[in-house]
């Protein structure tokens, strides 16, 4: 019996992710707990929840407890298009959960690749995202979409910019009935409308989908975008957990190319989310490209099955007749045997132990 069995549920996952990202040369990025509020005020739509804990420091500056990590990394990373910064982080962020008014401290792990983002970077990040899901354990799926394809297709269909967020929302819901009506209202011809309507419900292997997309989107989506999509995902076709899925959508104001979400069986929402956020970079006055993702350890922890039915291996129960030295010596002996030990003079309420060892007058009885 190893005492490691009793560690916090997501600790082994965090250790696994740390090893994974370090193995690909990503540098650990540690940041300040506080950030200037202005950073979030100007990019509220980028945040998962738009409530931020703010306070004024001694100089009168309005600061915030970080609700997000990516914005801080982008702000603090020098703008470069020569070479790439590869960083990973594990940080606490402070957010209001959906349907709640209370703030929660959430442990978030993720990585960012900022600078000259080429096909190698994108493929590497997608692979790392998939391997992050595998580190969580169980069956998993990494659903990958490309906002450039959707956006260029909507250009070809003559869909005004103002209508696109709503249409992307319907694509994200697989809501074909309302998407069909909206395209009809916008005067999109049946053939082109059917093409957009087919994207949220693609079926088949990666190779089959890529072949049919290249044929169907020829002339509607630029060659560059299609070949980028085909070359990255074609190269990952051997990974059966990577699935082309256009229902993964993100805000067009921030994201541009690949976007993806990761799911693990038994957890009802995505445990990983990421994408290429070149538009956020431009918004923040940077020329560099960027891609990254975050893993939601809090969500994983909520649905993780308990690995043990016990709080410790041994309850070492003593009374006043045993000396402190004798009790501690017995506890040390049990720990040396590889057991976890809880010493107590009365049975702790609400806890369970694999076995109980009782000491009287300095001896185990």
């Amino acid at each position, binding site marked *: 019996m190893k005492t490691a069995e009793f560690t916090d549920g997501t600790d082994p996952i965090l250790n696994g992710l740390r090893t994974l990202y370090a193995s690909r040369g990503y540098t650990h990025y540690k940041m300040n707990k506080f950030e200037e509020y202005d950073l979030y005020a100007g990019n509220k739509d980028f945040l998962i929840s738009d409530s931020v804990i703010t306070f004024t420091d001694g100089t009168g500056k309005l600061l915030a407890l970080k609700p997000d990590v990516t914005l801080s990394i982008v702000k603090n990373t020098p703008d470069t298009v020569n070479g790439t910064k590869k960083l990973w982080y594990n940080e606490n962020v402070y957010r209001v959960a959906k*349907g709640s008014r209370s703030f929660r401290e959430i442990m978030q792990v993720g990585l960012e690749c900022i600078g000259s983002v080429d096909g190698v970077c994108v493929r590497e990040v997608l692979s790392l995202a998939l391997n992050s899901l595998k580190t969580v354990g169980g069956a998993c799926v990494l659903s990958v979409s490309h906002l450039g394809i959707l956006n260029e297709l909507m250009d070809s269909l003559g869909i005004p910019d103002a209508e696109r967020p709503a249409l992307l929302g319907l694509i994200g*819901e697989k*809501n074909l009935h309302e998407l069909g009506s909206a395209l009809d209202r916008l005067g999109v011809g049946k053939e082109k409308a059917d093409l957009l309507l087919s994207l949220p419900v693609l079926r088949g292997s990666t190779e089959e989908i890529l072949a049919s997309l290249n044929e169907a989107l020829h002339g509607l989506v630029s060659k560059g975008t299609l070949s980028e999509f085909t070359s990255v995902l074609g190269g990952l076709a051997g990974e059966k957990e990577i699935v082309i899925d256009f*229902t993964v959508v993100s805000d067009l104001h921030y994201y541009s190319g690949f976007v993806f979400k990761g799911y693990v069986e038994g957890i009802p929402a*995505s445990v990983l989310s990421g994408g290429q956020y070149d538009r956020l970079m431009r918004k923040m006055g940077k020329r560099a490209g960027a891609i990254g993702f975050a893993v939601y350890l809090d969500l994983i922890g909520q649905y993780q099955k308990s690995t043990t039915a016990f709080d410790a291996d041994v309850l070492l129960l003593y009374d006043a007749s045993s000396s402190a030295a004798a009790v501690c010596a017995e506890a040390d002996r049990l720990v040396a045997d590889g057991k976890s030990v809880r010493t107590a003079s009365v049975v702790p309420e609400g806890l369970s132990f694999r076995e109980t060892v009782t000491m009287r007058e300095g001896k185990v009885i």
Partner: protein
Amino acid sequence: MLNIALPKGRLGEKVYDMFARAGYPCPALLENSRKLIFENEEAGVRYFWVKPSDVAIYVERGAADIGVAGKDILLEYRPDVYELLDLKTGICRMAVAAKKDFRDDTTRALRVATKFSNIAEHYYLSKGRDIDIIHLNGSIEIAPILGLSDVIVDIVETGTTLKENDLIVYDTVVPISARLIANKSGSRFKGGEIDRLVAEMAKIVEEKE
């Protein structure tokens, strides 16, 4: 096995009938009992009755793989789920109603009584009209009569309740019907089963039309 959350009540019975005709029957469901969960292993389904406004929560949080919820609930609570099919049943509309002699005084905020605060806010935001939301949990129709609000935003099915209270519909906010929804994660691991069910249900909806 697909877990299906059905809304308790008349709409739930109607949509269960559609599921049964689509090849997913579970006759025990209609027996008068206090049981809440019903299973037909052969058909690969487990049904459970829940409060209509809770269906989306069960599906979003993965306790149910799929469920049936009104569009009103989906618009109000915005759950992160797939909306796979308009079942074209439970048809009604979200409407703005007021007393017959109502005149919109645009010099002040419009007082709007509703159970659907988000829908009402979104609707008036799109019109650029300043409003004061009065959130009520029931008997919305009484609000304009007692002078609590200028208008109400509520579901109108036949209009009888409005008529009996001397209220009339001024505008339709959005048409409402029952929708088949699915959990986004579950759909990735039970995709085949869900696709088959959706295809069969689509046939039943078409037959009805």
